[in-house]
């Protein structure tokens, strides 16, 4: 009887939270890193299993009105030195600039390319952008489900950005750690497009940092895996490192 009461209490406790609150807690679990520099490797695998490699340095700076990021492409060598600077703007189109080293040109680009492939991978630009909970509305179909022997919240979120490549995303968030572990992303026609797995987290201080994530495209059978080889946070990086000046 006591056990039943405990389960009921826990269940009521869990559902006392809205999907929005869970999403906020999930975002908080990976936030407050201040600034970061990460060396990453991306493995692209086509439908036949042939692999190719990309290497990228990612610098990020958290901000109240949106994060800033600077991506420096390191490999393959012919795109080495290409840089992508992005300013997230909550509720508005982001700002993006591309630096093309062959011409020494800083080129403003349209940031509406949310759904386009990032470096020919199965990750789109919106997949690698900050997953700020404010960029979504949330469904009311909150559930708890068991996955990999752990209890997860199953929440549905809808991108506010009309240029998003997704109609909805279902996320599975660990009820204890509030870390997302799995997701299903649906295309604009509401067909299952991709499955994302957040395979590995590392706790640095109080911040959980993703270390490995995999995107599986259900429609074209390609798989991309992003691995953080090095990850440093709370570096006190200056905002000057996230300006057009940093592109030269």
């Amino acid at each position: 009887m006591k056990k039943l009461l405990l389960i009921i209490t826990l269940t009521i406790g869990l559902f006392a939270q809205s999907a929005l609150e869970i999403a906020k807690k999930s975002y908080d679990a990976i936030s407050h890193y201040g600034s970061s520099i990460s060396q990453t490797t991306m493995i692209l695998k086509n439908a036949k299993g042939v692999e190719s490699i990309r290497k990228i340095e990612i610098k990020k700076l958290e901000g109240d009105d949106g994060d800033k990021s600077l991506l420096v492409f390191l490999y393959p060598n012919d795109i080495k030195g290409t840089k992508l600077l992005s300013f997230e703007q909550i509720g508005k189109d982001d700002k993006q600039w591309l630096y093309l080293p062959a011409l020494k040109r800083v080129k403003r680009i349209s940031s509406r390319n949310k759904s386009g492939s990032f470096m020919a991978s199965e990750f789109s630009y919106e997949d690698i952008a900050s997953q700020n909970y404010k960029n979504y509305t949330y469904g009311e179909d909150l559930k708890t489900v068991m996955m990999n022997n752990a209890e997860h919240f199953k929440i549905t979120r809808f991108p506010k950005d009309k240029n998003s490549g997704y109609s909805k995303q279902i996320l599975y968030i660990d009820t204890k750690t509030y870390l997302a572990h799995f997701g299903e992303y649906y295309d604009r026609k509401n067909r299952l497009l991709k499955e994302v797995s957040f395979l590995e987290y590392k706790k640095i201080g109080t911040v959980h940092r993703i270390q490995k994530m995999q995107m599986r495209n259900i429609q074209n059978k390609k798989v991309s895996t992003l691995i953080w080889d090095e990850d440093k946070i709370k570096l006190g990086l200056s905002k000057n490192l996230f300006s057009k000046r940093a592109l030269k």
Partner: protein
Amino acid sequence: MIRFILSLLTALSLEAIEHTSNISLKYNSYNHYSNEIIIQGDTKLQLQNDIFTTAITLEYLYSDEYKERRYIILNELYFSKAYEDYDLIFGKTIKYWGELEGFNIADIYNQKNYLLDPFNKGAKLGSLGFNITRYIDEDSIEFGLKFYEENLKYPSQNSPYYPFLIGYDNELQLSNSLYLPSVYLAYSFITEDSFDSETKIILYHGYDNKRYFKLNNKGNLSQYAYRINKLLVLSNIIYNDTIFKYELSYTDVISDKKMSDYAQISLGLEKTLYDLAGTNISFYLEYYKYLYMQKNMIQNVDISEIYDNDIFLAFRVDFQDTEDSELKSGILYDLGKSERVFKIEIKSRIIDNFVLNSEYLQIISKDNTLLSNIGDSSRFNVGITYTF
């Protein structure tokens, strides 16, 4: 030269922090000239010590057919120092001033490298100078000084890009001293209120990047540089997913009576359609106009004057594949003379460090025009580039 650079680096305790080299093997086929095989490449080094950062770019070209298309040049060698709100740069540098894709009327700091390719936007010669930039949030003010004007080489009379009927001497003639510097002041700012835009205004005083030709005392043509005041304005404006761009210039010639004052206008727009059958396709539409302020003066001596009452239509297909395959094609069409320049380029990575590229260029010119003098009427090339 390489030994000198290595000695200098050792003396300054510089440590390499970045290095990239490209080497290309290309076969060029021309319809009016002998075909050639070229080896072309560059090495970029970035070095650092406790005080400053140094960047070096070494470029080389070797043609099996045309002796003048054989060189090795130190195209960039500069020292930079970054402070909290300032950047200082001293040395031989290449700058890019421009917004449009087909031709940049504002890109005047460096002379073109005609030995490499007059139709390649990136073929430029480094200029020796100094500049200081003050940053105020996303805005900046830059003051720069260019120490002297470079002599400009052309390929030989029997090669595809030789535009003259008589001999050419690369020793520059000038209206004033070779070492009288050119100066500029550039202000870059952004606006976010009514439109999301970025604008750069440049005031330039010194030698014009456009030069004309005079017979020298050896009976050869050589370039003649004169001094000007120039105002340049370049901007991009983002509206939804379309980028509107313009570049404007007005040049007041102050040290030459044969050259007219002139103005240049260019307007452009760029629109990209994303995720079309797995590709991204960008479209470009641009218009260029050249205005001479006084008539019956020297005209049609510089490649920039081709861009007069011309439209440029182009597209770029990014195949979004793991080989980063890309197809670019465009046509420059003269609305007055019906001259056309057509170009198509394709490239794709074949294995990790090797990129296969190919290009076709065709010029359909009218008789006795500047365009008819500039180059061969068509060329095709195919090559492979190794990057390490």
